[in-house]
């Protein structure tokens, strides 16, 4: 890891360690869940050059299955989150297999269409509770031992899940696989001409991204003790795009910063009601017009070091 990124990581860890003493733990947990979700999305957009517009499916199904596993099957929270992650992995494998056959806008449209199918499935399926969602999900006890009901205790588990996911994504990007993936993003025909079967790499990236999005969704379900249609509806997919663009596509820390900004905005602007969306839209437009590289992207350009 370059020095600039190591320093940024140290700052991030320090922030996560200090945050529950300074801010509401639930608020920070929300930021961490969405940050992990955005980072998973960024693996696809930033490093494979694939714009998925259906990541809500993986986040939402992760959320639903974790909630169902914890509430109905009585799973411990870590197993419930794993269940959500595995569900998203399987879904990602099936959808990815179909979607990676197309490029650009067609790829985005197929991922959106498939995600909408999942949404309508969730509206109808009995286990999701329809409009009510799955409510009163027990937080349970970690490994059956540590009671996670207090926010302060749960916080450290969520922080650990986030950091593990974040570092896992870093490893993926900086692995032999990640190197090939970036080559495919930069110039797919050339990568093929070097003998790389590009579809296989894109599919693997897609599955990994879906898996981590599912884990983020599952963790969210345990934190808020609820899984609803909001988790699986298309604006959730849009949020991943927004957070990643705002923070900086293809940067390590961009999606984290983007998630922090969006979650904070939503909390601070909640009093304006429906205007939140309008304000978000204006910020998005300003971002695209004024600083295309996103917050972290512009920053790394200014200091000429990767972040």
């Amino acid at each position, binding site marked *: 890891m370059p020095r600039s990124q190591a320093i940024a990581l140290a700052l991030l860890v320090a922030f996560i360690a200090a945050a529950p003493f300074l801010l509401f733990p639930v608020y920070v947990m929300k930021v961490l869940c969405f940050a992990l979700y955005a980072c998973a999305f960024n693996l696809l957009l930033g490093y494979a050059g694939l714009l998925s517009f259906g990541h809500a499916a993986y986040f939402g199904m992760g959320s639903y299955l974790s909630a169902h596993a914890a509430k109905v099957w009585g799973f411990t929270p870590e197993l419930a989150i794993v269940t959500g992650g595995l569900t998203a992995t399987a879904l990602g494998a099936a959808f990815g297999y179909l979607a990676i056959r197309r490029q650009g806008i067609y790829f985005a449209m197929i991922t959106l269409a498939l995600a909408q199918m999942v949404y309508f499935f969730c509206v109808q399926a009995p286990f999701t509770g329809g409009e009510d969602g799955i409510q009163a999900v027990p937080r349970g006890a970690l490994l059956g031992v540590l009671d996670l009901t207090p926010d302060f205790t749960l916080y450290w588990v969520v922080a650990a899940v986030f950091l593990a996911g974040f570092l896992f994504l870093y*490893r*993926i990007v*900086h*692995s*032999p*696989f*990640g*190197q*090939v993936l*970036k*080559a495919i*993003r*930069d*110039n797919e*025909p*050339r*990568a*093929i*001409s*070097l*003998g*790389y*079967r*590009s579809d*296989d*790499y894109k599919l*693997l990236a897609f599955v*990994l991204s879906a898996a981590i999005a599912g884990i983020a969704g599952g963790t969210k379900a345990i934190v808020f003790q609820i899984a609803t249609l909001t988790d699986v509806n298309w604006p959730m997919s849009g949020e991943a795009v927004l957070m990643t663009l705002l923070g900086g596509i293809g940067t390590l820390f961009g999606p984290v910063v983007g998630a922090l900004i969006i979650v904070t905005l939503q909390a601070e602007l909640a009093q304006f009601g429906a205007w939140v969306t309008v304000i978000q839209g204006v910020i998005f437009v300003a971002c695209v017009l004024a600083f295309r590289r996103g917050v972290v992207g512009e920053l790394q350009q200014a200091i000429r070091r990767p972040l």
Partner: protein
Amino acid sequence: MGGDFVLETEGLTKEFRGFVAVKDVALSVRRGSVHAIIGPNGAGKTTCFNLLTKFLQPTRGVIRYEGRDITALKPAEVARLGVVRSFQISAVFPHLTVLENVRVALQRARGGSYDFWRSESLLSRYEDRARALLADVGLDRYENVPAGLLPYGRKRALEIATTLALEPKLMLLDEPTAGMTHEDVDRVVDLIRRVRAGRTILLVEHNLKVVAGLSDTITVLTRGQVLAEGDYAAISANPEVKTAYLGTEEG
């Protein structure tokens, strides 16, 4: 394996919705030779090239490499057999550094590289070889520059270094000197001359000077068909070629 010809085609045809871009092309590329395909614009050179590398699927015909029928293979599989192509537009990985561009090709030696859980630091063992290849094409001073920032001529040099990294048995170069300044053309021609030892090269080229100096065999394509074949002296004396290529009898 063996035989005089590395690559052979029979009746190679490509139709695009009724338009025949390449028709009944029989090509035999002799082992160890530099074989050029020339022809006026729209003659089907690039289509032919894309058929040979399987980036396009032929409508009819057979392609044989080392005596093996490769007509049904996917482009990545053809590359794995040692048939490596370049592109007309300089094909580099713009956001990877110059060193990484070559390294990602050398990395093919370890197989598929699907290991997303390992550190990329294990790729450092390819860096000495990558540096040697870069030195070969005069890019050693640029190894940490993102490839997208290189000037055009140097991108082509990088592309050739990346291609060479795969130790191709058959190199297919699509207009290697297109859009280059005189200096760069000379450098690339020089480079091709140096790397041809031990391999076979098939190139599509517009620049007759390059073709004249480099190739052992020349195939002239017009309207998707082979018009003539032979060495430079024979081809340049052929009146039909003059008409087709220069559009005039005098040449």
